[in-house]
């Protein structure tokens, strides 16, 4: 029993480390892409509390949001925000990894302006329909 609890605690810390590693790797890739000139805009990822309606069985409490902030210096148009979000959502491996590590919401916004886009990850995870059904992005 005690051993089982120890394993659970170890898994919890392992998942937390994996979450921060993913955010760090994303930011590193975005930085490299910006430095080499491939990307006109620097992207920055961070963990937020997420949307309460998007929760699923693996959601982290108050840390279910994966927010991508585009350091564009201007307000991004809706189609630009959606394009960034769609690239993440079309990458099935990344979406599954995000869901597995406790994220439930993907948020994209610019560093200027008040518009942003938000998706429920459970609608895009495609795990045979056991996490959620339908799509309402």
């Amino acid at each position, binding site marked *: 029993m005690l051993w089982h609890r120890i394993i659970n605690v170890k898994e919890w810390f392992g*998942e937390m480390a994996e979450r921060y590693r993913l955010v760090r790797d*994303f930011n590193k890739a975005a930085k490299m892409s910006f430095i080499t000139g491939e990307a006109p805009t620097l992207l920055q990822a961070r963990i937020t509390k997420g949307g309460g309606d998007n929760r699923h069985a693996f959601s982290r409490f108050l840390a279910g949001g994966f927010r991508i902030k585009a350091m564009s210096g201007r307000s991004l148009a809706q189609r630009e925000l959606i394009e960034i979000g769609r690239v*993440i959502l*079309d990458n099935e491996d990344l979406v599954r990894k995000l869901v597995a590590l406790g994220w439930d919401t993907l948020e994209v916004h610019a560093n200027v302006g008040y518009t942003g886009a938000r998706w429920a990850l459970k609608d895009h995870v495609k795990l045979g329909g056991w996490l959620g059904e339908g799509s309402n992005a």
Partner: protein
Amino acid sequence: MAREATHKYVCRQVAWNVLTTRQQTSMIKQLQMCFTMLMDQKMHSSTALTDDMGMDLINHPIWFWLFLLQCIVIVILVFLLVEQKINARLAVYERNRMQEYGKKEVDLVNVMKSINSSKELYKELSLKCHPDRYAGDPRQAIARELFRDISANKRNYQKLREIQEVANKKLV
């Protein structure tokens, strides 16, 4: 003998193997107590021994109904316990499956390239490999297949690059 038979019957009813030793012991004690009280009441009550079954049911002592109620509650609890165990097993399976996904490596450089460059590459390839460009040409079938792949990997830069290489070889 009758007492033992009743005891075995109740044991079978509550799926004995599922319960822990402590639960089993406490249940045996409770059942024995109820059974003893019931038998005492039966022996002392003359109305319970009548031939009329309808009257017999009505005239059962309160302990009988309590015993019956307790049996029903036990059966419900055992049912819930079994269901919970099945669910727990499923949860472990799902958790293990999700942990596998959590440890899987994702190419984030490709994600960045897809965000920044996949749109242009998609436009270029969709123009280059559009099947209508090869109408009446034997390469049209290849172009149709490539165009299907391009549409499926619209936002995947790496896949689009691979398709571009194939298109350069086959659609020259």
